[in-house]
């Protein structure tokens, strides 16, 4: 292969995953990671999973090179008390969406390997029970910088 062609191919391949995370019936959108304070060993990740197919999808696992472990967490409140519990079954019926968002259910990245800075891209890999793999690219956001709430 000629060198320019090779470079273009490599560039295309590197752009491809960020363009689309579609590799099956599961569509993963709006993935981002809350920038953790420097000493934090955990970070929350958020995303929306949608089953665009007509069959049940069960999530087998999710992992990331940025953390020792990634878990889907269910957040609940009772009497002002905040509980987090790992969701053992992450399943989506045909057409169903699961939303993981700030202040609610989230993904928990445990034992971060490196400090995550605003603008960093975190890759996560989600595997479903049928063996499909989905590559997710989540940008790290510094929530202290907000576009809609300016004050000096």
């Amino acid at each position: 292969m000629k060198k320019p062609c090779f470079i273009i191919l490599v560039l295309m391949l590197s752009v491809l995953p960020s363009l689309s995370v579609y590799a099956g019936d599961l569509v993963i959108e709006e993935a981002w990671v809350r920038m953790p304070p420097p000493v934090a060993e955990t970070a929350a990740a958020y995303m929306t999973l949608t089953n665009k197919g007509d069959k049940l999808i069960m999530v087998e696992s999710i992992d990331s090179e940025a953390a020792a472990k990634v878990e889907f967490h269910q957040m609940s409140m009772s009497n002002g008390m905040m509980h987090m519990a790992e969701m053992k079954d992450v399943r989506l019926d045909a057409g169903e969406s699961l939303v993981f968002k700030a202040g609610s259910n989230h993904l928990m990245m445990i034992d971060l390997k490196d400090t995550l800075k605003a603008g960093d891209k975190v890759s996560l890999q989600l595997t479903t029970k049928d063996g499909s793999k989905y590559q997710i690219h989540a940008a790290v956001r510094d929530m202290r910088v907000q576009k809609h709430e300016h004050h000096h």
Partner: protein
Amino acid sequence: MFYKSKFFQSFFLLLFLSSLLLFACSKQEETAVMIPLQSHAGEVHLSDFKNQLILLSFGYTHCPDVCPATLLHVSQALNLLSIAERKKVQAIFFSVDPQRDTPELLNKYVQYFHNDMIAVNAEGLNYSRFLKAFNIESQQLSDDPNYEISHTSYLFLLGDDAKVLDIMGHETAAKFIAEAIRKHLKD
């Protein structure tokens, strides 16, 4: 006569016990402000912040979602205040996880959100007394080294002698926190 003195004995005993009870109870209320707390700069007490309102929150650094969101709201609320107003408020983050959250670590954690914030922990009896004073429950969920803690996530606005002026949910937006502070600064 014997009967009578017995009556008086019991009467005085009862009086003594009830005054002891009163004393013990009022003492327990006072202790919230006197409980020694550890900050990176040494021991502090709520009573150290004279003529200041205290905005007290509870959490831990391994909490990835709710705790940083709450502290973000607190820091934004402080930024909504004027410099003069801000001097009359002290935001304090109390760690429900003294096992992992050292005062040094906690300081770095809160500094990320706001320079004017301080963070404290307490251990053993002081820890449980402090939580009890504000009716905070905390529960470690496993023995895994990456354990999580379920905890009450209210924000407290405290006046003199740690008197509770306002209790807000952890999701309270910055401008409502700032409003609550302003309201009590005027009083």
